[in-house]
């Protein structure tokens, strides 16, 4: 496995793998204290770094925390650094990317260094977009549908901020949202998009980075790649058992989105989707089935299949897949 990724990437992801092995208990419980101890975090920072500043926002009534990333150009003077009143722009559309971090519904947070770093990259990449990283509740302490509820709450919060609005003129002012996420975050992005479509809330696009889907069946890719590139079928099963309601199977609609128990997505007018699949990810067959299902139900989807990419290829900017991904995201967000 070491040859496929740069050495430091291999070290990083292997470290996660081993640490995570320590944290998952056979009885389904999770060593949350040790997980938080081991997680490397970064604080929000209103002093700009590489052209991006950030701050955290806490909704007292729900306890939900979002981390907001903005370009330095939006920073006000020292006496009024964070503008929470005026729209982002009255002459142009400024995208707001609502990002759901990965971690198989269990690990990481908006403050995790890997995700803080990733979100920061998206700001200049998408021409000075705002990124809102959602600190959703995690399993096994908070099972389905908590993560989706939090995603939905975050979307409504974002949509209702006057200071996230933009538009070519005052009359077309709106909060222009893209949903994005990796692994479990991609799964959350999908479900939030569905809910938004049902509620008539406009989302401009979905970016799903090796999204976490599954089902009871064992697909060919799962068998072929089991344990080969950092991930095992056994650990995937553990995370689904930790997230889904107790006793549920992986054909639950949260997991198996085009499975026997799922909602029919035909005619739903879901936002256009960019789905990125890593060719060495063992759940790729589920992701490809997702893409196929979206096409079949008349929803616009673009697949990026990265042949020899492993999970987490986007954590470090040291490989071609990373750069390819960044280019695709940039084009996806800027297209009208």
């Amino acid at each position, binding site marked *: 496995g*070491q040859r496929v990724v740069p*050495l*430091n990437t*291999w*070290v*990083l992801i*292997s*470290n996660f*793998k*081993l*640490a995570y*092995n*320590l944290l998952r*208990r*056979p009885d389904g419980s999770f*060593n949350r*204290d*040790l997980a*938080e*101890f*081991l997680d*490397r*975090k*970064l*604080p*929000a*920072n*209103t*002093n700009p*770094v590489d052209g991006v500043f950030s*701050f*955290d*926002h*806490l*909704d*007292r*009534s729900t*306890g939900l*925390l979002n*981390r907001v990333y903005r370009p330095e150009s939006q920073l006000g003077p*020292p*006496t*009024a650094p*964070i503008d*929470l*009143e005026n729209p982002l722009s009255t002459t142009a559309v400024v995208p707001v990317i609502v990002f759901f971090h990965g971690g198989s519904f269990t690990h990481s947070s908006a*403050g995790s*260094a*890997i995700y803080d*770093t990733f979100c920061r990259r998206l700001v200049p990449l998408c021409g000075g977009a705002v990124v809102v990283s959602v600190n959703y509740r995690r399993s096994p302490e908070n099972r389905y549908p908590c993560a989706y509820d939090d995603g939905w709450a975050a979307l409504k919060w974002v949509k209702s901020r006057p200071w996230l609005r933009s538009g070519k003129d005052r009359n077309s002012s709106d909060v222009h949202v893209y949903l994005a996420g990796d692994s479990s975050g991609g799964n959350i992005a999908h479900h939030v998009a569905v809910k938004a479509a049902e509620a008539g809330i406009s989302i401009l696009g979905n970016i799903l980075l090796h999204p976490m889907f599954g089902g009871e069946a064992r697909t060919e890719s799962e068998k072929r790649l089991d344990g080969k590139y950092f991930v095992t079928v056994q650990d995937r099963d553990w995370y689904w058992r930790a997230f889904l309601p107790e006793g549920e199977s992986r054909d639950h609609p949260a997991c198996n989105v085009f499975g026997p128990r799922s909602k029919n997505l035909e005619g739903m007018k879901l936002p256009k989707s960019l789905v990125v699949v890593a060719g060495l990810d063992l759940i790729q067959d589920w992701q490809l089935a997702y893409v196929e299902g979206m096409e079949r139900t008349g929803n616009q989807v673009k697949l990026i299949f990265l042949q020899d990419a492993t999970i987490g290829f986007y*954590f*470090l*900017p*040291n490989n071609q897949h990373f750069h390819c991904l960044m280019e695709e995201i940039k084009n996806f967000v800027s297209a009208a």
Partner: protein
Amino acid sequence: MDELLAVLGYKVRSSDMADVAQKLEQLEMAMGTAQDDGISHLACDTIHYNPSDLSGWVDSMLSEFTNPPDDSEYDLRAIPGVAAYPQADESDKDSSPAAVSSPSSSSSPPPPIAAAAAPSSALIAEPTRPVVLIDSQEAGVRLVHTLLACAEAVQQDNVKLADALVKHTGLLAASQTGAMRKVATYFAEALARRIYKIYPQDCLDPSYSDTLEMHFYETCPYLKFAHFTANQAILEAFATANRVHVIDFGLKQGMQWPALMQALALRPGGPPAFRLTGIGPPQPNNTDNLQQVGWKLAHLAETIGVEFEFRGFVANSLADLEPEMLDLRPADVEAVAVNSVFELHRLLGRSAGMDKVLSTIKAMKPKIVTVVEQEANHNGPVFVDRFTEALHYYSSLFDSLEGSTASQDLVMSELYLGRQICNVVACEGGDRVERHETLTQWRARMESAGFDPVHLGSNAYKQASMLLALFAGGDGYRVEENNGALMLGWHTRPLIATSAWQLAR
């Protein structure tokens, strides 16, 4: 140092990368075997230190999985701060070892990380300003801006403008509620004092300020966390000593020591002889606060069977302390711990004070030095920056208090913090004693003074988390590990930091 991993919080030398990779492979094999043999409990019981030092972490994990575990080492259980002075109780003496024996770990404290990573200058390039906004602050954004504009006017000596703005702040604050209103009021008052040069008389009766601190201690977990984490480090340092001496730089009501004494009493093999030297400011009316605290602790020591000796020292400043005054005994006879909770920053107002104290500490030849400080830079040279830092810091602190229920305690706690705010904003020179600095700054200072870090581990982390669950009113408190130090914060904003030190080899 591999720069890409450094950004993600892992310090690995590029030259070590292949070695770390190989060890990770070995570790995977060892863990796989462990699980097959059903000894994966090792995973739960291992004490982890400083995850940022990936090489060190992998090494220690490898030795856990490939070597059989040694004798147990106890560690401090969360002993409720409420029971600081418990009733004399026979059962205390008879607590079964099972109550304290910890799961196995290495038999001695881990060696200091060999590559004692000097703070990488690439990583501390810019000061960080972590801001957590509470939804009410969106509504209060004008209030914040007015306060900041006022501070700016003060810095520019524009008295007329500052005066107008501070009055306007009063109006805006009145329309706010909760923590926002209180914080704004304290900051506005402090600004007014600075503008009109009505400086607060800090000749406050120390017993009054101790009372305020007691309320703060009861209302929220910050002081309990400070005591708990410092005690954990002290306990580990004292593990094999038969005679121990703690020098407390700010004894106050001695709230930190009953828990340590109880843990020492329950040590397998029996407690060491415990000597405490408590330092405090001069008292008015000739009351000897230090002796009174000493008596209380002596009484406790007697009930729990710990040989105890106490000495109090009155000092205007820690810089007045000389090692000869302390009756220090040879290091092989008595292990020394120096403990400072929110005391060291007070020395930064006078030149050479800090250097003197750090030399004095070194002359005490301590086994361990525990330092707890506010995690904020309230000592910058530029007034507006200091003001802004403090505004965000105390906003988070006041927000965290909003969850607590005892309203009497809350008011007193707010007063306690309000005095700090006043000092940071209204005072200058020798009067400004609340010169808080960040862990990064303290690290640099301690390391250049000749100290090496002693890392606090996952056991201390876990127990600190448990302590929070027991006592904290709100569930926004977070413990965070930072390169071997532990920080307690409100949501994502760290507010206090505990670090431990030893003399550099």
